[in-house]
């Protein structure tokens, strides 16, 4: 019997010497997103608004471009935002909306404590259905899309 178990989210914390107001813009403004996360970005920062990001795979993947299509779910400046994370490419096979990222910004010591939680990640177990299996394989390909972003 295969038991489906939810995966633990990836949780990251980082301390930044900048106010939450400053950090928040790096998730909602296109010209700031391209400074740390992706090559190109288009954003419509309101609930239901779309966030498009172009990620370039590393040289080992032929410098292929992958298009992240996310949707802002919750925007509460300067303390919290939630958006979905998925890719357009049929070859990748992961529908946009398949994972969720939650970012919390708390003022601390004149700076910001940032917490990022990436949920709905694929499982280490083999999924029991073809659909889940395709999903799992596709996630590996996506990982390649995010790999070596500076290569």
């Amino acid at each position, binding site marked *: 019997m295969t038991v489906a178990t939810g995966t633990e989210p990836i949780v990251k914390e980082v301390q930044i010497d900048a106010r939450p107001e400053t950090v928040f813009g790096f998730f909602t403004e296109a010209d700031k997103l391209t400074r740390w996360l992706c090559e190109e970005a288009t954003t419509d920062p309101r609930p239901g608004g779309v966030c498009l990001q172009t990620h370039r795979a590393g040289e080992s993947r032929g410098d292929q471009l992958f298009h992240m299509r996310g949707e802002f779910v919750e925007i509460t400046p300067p303390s919290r935002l939630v958006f979905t994370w998925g890719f357009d490419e049929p070859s990748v096979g992961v529908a946009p909306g398949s994972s969720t990222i939650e970012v919390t910004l708390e003022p601390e010591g004149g700076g910001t404590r940032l917490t990022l939680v990436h949920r709905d990640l694929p499982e280490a177990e083999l999924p029991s259905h073809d659909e889940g299996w395709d999903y799992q394989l596709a996630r*590996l390909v996506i990982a390649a899309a995010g790999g070596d972003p500076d290569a």
Partner: protein
Amino acid sequence: MADMQHAIDAIAEPRRREILRLVRDAELPAGAIAAHFADVTRPAVSQHLRTLREAGLVAERREGTRRLYRARPQGFAGLREFLDQFWDERLDVLRREAEREERGKTDDSGNRN
């Protein structure tokens, strides 16, 4: 991250993905796997199996003269590690850029340290 790159390269080939599906729930001999592909030579299938095995995505077991293959779930566990590192690296860049932005703002207001 070498293991992860191996896994990614291994599944980039459609036939290797098909092989993974075949051996997902059942352990199969190489011959049965090769028989599934009308348009692929037996040596080519052997090479695909070898690539998958080296990437840690399938396990090989010998039974007499037969070699049996089965998908290896733990071979996929590297993805989590990869994403984990991806966010570490990206957030490190974010921290630098946000701090640079903050200093810029401070400088603009004449509030220099």
